[in-house]
């Protein structure tokens, strides 16, 4: 059995039927991490107990226990997720040494399903970034080209998955942080509908936009992982009480008669030619498979990026107030505590603990919420947000799934855009409106640039209509011109 390229189900079945032990699987991937991650820097910390935990799982299997549908599947977890007993830093100095005494709900559910946590994955600090260059743990490199960024903020997850250092990973997506790195690294990344997956124990960036999802190697693995992590959680009042569909069981490549929407506003040109070609190819493929292509319009998406930054920065400025050097994490070094003024205590701790990009967004958000500006900014953004959502709901009356590019261009060079935050923000033009409207969205690999960098296409569906989106992705995956291609490091 080729463990490196095995799917979640293949590993779990092999482990459960004792064809391979969970321990062997864990050791295999531990070796891969050891030998390859030096070049990628996708892990910020490793779980030294992984093999031991796998052995415990084997023992349970030997006793005939049901160990779950993901028995022995090695996973990497983005730093954003709290993991009991494992460092959880959100890629920030301000959380250095923080070890949570609890698991986030999604990690707890995956553990219950039998995964083995191999370690924590690098990310942009507090998920604020699109290139994984803002992490306290250093830059992550794209396995397809080590000079390029893996995308962000879930860059560590995308890189580790593309290099097959694990069988599955988790990411979070606030404005594209799952879909964009998935596209840059040639893997499948899904952001579920807002409210589908519990946010409990996931470090908050922007509460009304954040959603966790799988970053894996196939549509089926994505569907399976979603089934495990989705569903109501009594620790998160913003999770839906709807039942979780068996997405993986219902997956089909038959898209005959499905209406694929192309957004007028996204077809104004400006795409990198290879991205343009990838999108066109995917449309042609779906047409050939019998899908109907229809034009839809969501005019308000033109302001999605500023609305997104306004909402995200405002919420972040409040969400990040808890990092104050009192209860956990970094505290500035004060020789004599008794002589310190409280305000100085906070300002120094936070000034030194947060990185530049995070501080920039806290400043922006604080400004937007401050006295006299709330109505013009946060409140106004909320109103426009409703208009965006309403226009999407109208568009989904005419189509089942909207198809578009994920980003205007493939992965860029490390250092190329970090100095100009505004250009960096424009990375997000195709992804942020999905979060604003709470829609499910995903990236599925479908092309390759001339330089050999992967390109994904983005699929978006209506609220809680993940199945339609996954079906179209499954169809595309079955006909993908880049199927079976892997980065050189592998």
């Amino acid at each position, binding site marked *: 059995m080729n463990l490196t390229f095995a799917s979640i189900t293949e590993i779990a079945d092999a482990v459960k039927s004792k064809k391979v032990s969970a321990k062997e699987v864990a050791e295999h991937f531990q070796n891969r991490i050891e030998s390859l991650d030096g070049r990628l820097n996708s892990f910020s910390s490793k779980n030294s107990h992984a093999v031991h935990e796998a052995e415990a799982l084997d023992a349970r299997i030997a006793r005939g226990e049901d160990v779950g549908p993901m028995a022995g599947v090695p996973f990497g977890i983005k730093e954003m997720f709290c993991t009991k007993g494992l460092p959880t830093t959100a890629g920030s100095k301000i959380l250095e040494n923080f070890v949570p005494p609890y698991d986030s709900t999604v990690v707890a559910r995956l553990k219950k399903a039998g995964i083995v946590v191999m370690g924590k994955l690098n990310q942009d600090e507090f998920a604020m970034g699109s290139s994984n260059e803002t992490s306290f743990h250093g830059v992550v490199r794209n396995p397809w080209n080590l000079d390029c960024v893996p995308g962000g903020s879930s860059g560590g997850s995308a890189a580790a998955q593309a290099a097959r250092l694990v069988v599955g990973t988790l990411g979070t997506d606030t404005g594209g942080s799952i879909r964009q790195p998935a596209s840059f690294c040639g893997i499948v990344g899904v952001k579920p509908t807002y409210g589908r997956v519990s946010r409990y124990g996931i470090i908050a960036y922007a509460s009304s936009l954040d959603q966790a999802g799988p970053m894996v190697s196939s549509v089926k693995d994505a569907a399976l992982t979603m089934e495990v992590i989705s569903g109501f959680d009594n620790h998160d009042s*913003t999770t839906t009480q709807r039942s979780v569909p068996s997405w993986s069981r219902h997956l089909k490549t038959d898209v005959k008669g499905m209406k694929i929407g192309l957004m007028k506003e996204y077809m104004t040109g400006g795409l990198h030619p290879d991205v343009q070609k990838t999108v066109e190819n995917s449309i042609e493929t779906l047409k050939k498979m019998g899908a109907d292509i229809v034009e839809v319009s969501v005019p308000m998406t033109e302001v999605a990026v500023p609305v997104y930054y306004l909402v995200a920065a405002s919420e972040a400025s409040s969400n990040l107030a808890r990092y104050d050097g009192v209860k956990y994490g970094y505290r500035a070094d004060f020789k004599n505590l008794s002589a310190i003024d409280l305000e100085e205590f906070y300002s120094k701790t*936070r000034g030194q603990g947060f990185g530049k990009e995070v501080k920039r967004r806290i400043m922006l958000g604080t400004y937007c919420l401050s006295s006299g500006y709330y109505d013009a900014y946060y409140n106004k953004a909320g109103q426009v947000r409703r208009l965006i959502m309403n226009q999407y709901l109208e568009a989904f009356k005419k189509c089942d799934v909207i198809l578009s590019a994920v980003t205007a261009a493939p992965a860029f060079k490390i250092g190329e855009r970090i100095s100009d935050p505004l250009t960096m923000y424009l990375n997000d033009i195709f992804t942020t409106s999905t979060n604003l409207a709470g829609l499910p969205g995903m990236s599925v690999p479908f092309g390759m640039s001339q330089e050999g960098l992967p390109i994904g296409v983005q699929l978006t569906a209506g609220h809680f209509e993940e199945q339609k989106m996954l079906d179209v992705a499954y169809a595309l995956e079955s006909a993908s011109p880049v199927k079976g291609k892997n980065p050189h490091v592998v």
Partner: protein
Amino acid sequence: MIDKKTIEHIAKLARLHVTEEEAQEYSLQLAKALAHFEQIAKIDTTGVEPLITPTEIESYWREDVVKQEFSAEEMTANAPSKAGNLFKVPPVV
């Protein structure tokens, strides 16, 4: 557009120590970002209720039943400074 005084005020509200150099940089970037936001100001939103939670989610309220799952030791284990099971901070008064 964003003067130094405003930057200082915002930094104080956010409890962020900002160097002279950073203040300059933020002042430029903030101004740029806010100019970007001008696009939103033009949109007519009369009578539109702001959207916060973007999907239909049923209300869930907890029953009033005590669950004590963590010890005081666990809750203070990450504290940068403590005395017994209390968090220690500079004198406030």
